[in-house]
């Protein structure tokens, strides 16, 4: 047996403060419940429109439906067969169902608009309250200035392009650089916290007939209730896309270290090239 050189103790940095960790895991739960109960609500009327009104006699820009023996998704004039997943699928008992989204994707499993709304409208409170607190902490607690603030050099197209190339080649930062968010991370986190999540909340509120009387300007901002509903749906899938990329990045960058850092706060810096034995 040859003697191995003594391993350098890994450098640990305190990367995520408690509010970030709490908010992260609360959001993981909240957004999952909101997505799945939201798909149940969508099942009650699986058609989307632009403008103030929209019902069965009006032209839907997106529709999930079924023919006699097939399910389909239609977007504009583009139509794709989705039998087995959307519009026509088989439930756990082997029965054919014609709801838009399948039981494994909705809360509850079996069709209940009332229960879907119960979950959705109560978890919406959790999302809104936690997001408000987290935005305040981000803005005034140093998170924005310390972690998310995009420095002047980072805005350079050359810098952004290099980061995109690094991501595409799955070349992740090591050493000191891994302790900081890179430009694409900063932009996606800022986008989620300050753009997409508020957009979800405001388009959701714009669908409330009570809140329309409270703040008529909100529905004008989205040019109508059915437009707000469409934007709500699109933004939900933007969050799903963020989630998928987020999970892929965690898996590629070292899932144990990444998940541990979101639980304990402590992150082990991957050794820089020269330090690797």
């Amino acid at each position: 047996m040859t003697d191995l050189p003594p391993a350098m103790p890994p450098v640990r940095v305190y990367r995520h403060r408690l509010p970030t960790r709490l908010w992260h895991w609360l959001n993981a739960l909240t957004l999952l419940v909101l997505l799945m109960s939201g798909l149940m609500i969508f099942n009650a009327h699986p058609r989307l429109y632009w403008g103030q009104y929209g019902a069965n006699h009006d032209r839907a820009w997106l529709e999930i439906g079924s023919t006699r023996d097939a399910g389909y998704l239609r977007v504009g004039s583009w139509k794709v067969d989705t039998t087995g997943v959307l519009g026509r699928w088989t439930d756990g008992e082997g029965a054919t169902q014609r709801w838009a989204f399948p039981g494994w994707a909705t809360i509850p499993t079996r069709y209940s608009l009332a229960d879907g709304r119960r979950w959705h409208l109560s978890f919406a409170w959790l999302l809104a309250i936690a997001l408000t607190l987290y935005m305040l902490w981000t803005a005034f607690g140093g998170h924005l200035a310390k972690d998310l603030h995009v420095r002047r050099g980072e805005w350079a197209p050359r810098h952004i392009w290099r980061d995109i190339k690094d991501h595409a080649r799955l070349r992740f930062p090591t050493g000191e650089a891994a302790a900081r968010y890179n430009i694409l991370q900063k932009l996606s986190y800022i986008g989620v916290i300050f753009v997409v999540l508020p957009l979800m909340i405001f388009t959701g509120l714009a669908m409330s007939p009570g809140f329309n009387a409270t703040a008529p300007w909100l529905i004008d901002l989205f040019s109508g209730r059915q437009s707000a509903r469409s934007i709500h749906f699109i933004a939900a899938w933007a969050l799903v896309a963020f989630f998928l990329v987020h999970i892929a990045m965690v898996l590629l960058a070292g899932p144990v270290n990444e998940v541990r850092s979101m639980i304990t706060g402590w992150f082990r810096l991957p050794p820089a090239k020269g330090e690797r034995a």
Partner: protein
Amino acid sequence: MSGIVLPRRQLIARAGGLVAAAGALPLLSGCDAINEAPAVRKILSMGEEMHRASQRALTDRDALAREFTRADLSPVFRPNGTRLPEGEAYATHAARGFADWRVAVTGLLARPLSLSMADIRAMPQRSQITRHDCVEGWSAIGEWTGVQLSRVLAAAGLKDSARYIVFRCADRIGDADYYESCDLVDALHPQTILAWALNRQLLPIANGAPLRLRIERQLGYKHAKYLTGLEAVASLDGIGAGKGGYWEDRVDYEWYAGI
């Protein structure tokens, strides 16, 4: 626990060979068990109360729902729920053009009334072009004409002990009559009307002829159709299952449908 953790082979058999569904089955039954738990349902219903309280706190009592112009009308106003009440009695009324239809105004009132359609049309009228939002997600814009509920209640002399107005309907769904209710904030709201016309035509049967409620700051199922009576009450206990409406009693739709 044994009901949830099943041997995998059994699961696959149960799912009719759908492996994906089989793998998800224990998890799904777990989720549905959570959904059915009374304590969970109680916690979730706090969300509704928070929405009601916050909207009431933020909104002026008389803040209006958006009114549109005739250029904004839906080409077709979609009816929903009952489209034709069952039974001889309603058919006979419809055949006679609802000439003998009466709306009983009862309960905690100084002067209970029985109004004919002619009585209702003889009162001052309000027209409004508003958006109807179904709980399912669709919307339709229509022009409604009728008498403000506040005028009817004023004529009947609402007593101080009254807290809610219950709306009785001629349509049955399954084994029960449809009904709805609202508090006095919405009952006395200027846009809350008993409507007998849609788009300047007599209300079609599918949309609730001869008379329906418009309660513009709430979802469609609150807009009771085929009205036969209004009742001023102090409490919703003992009416139906006590939750204030047909769908509220049956599937737990929110009584406050402003969201």
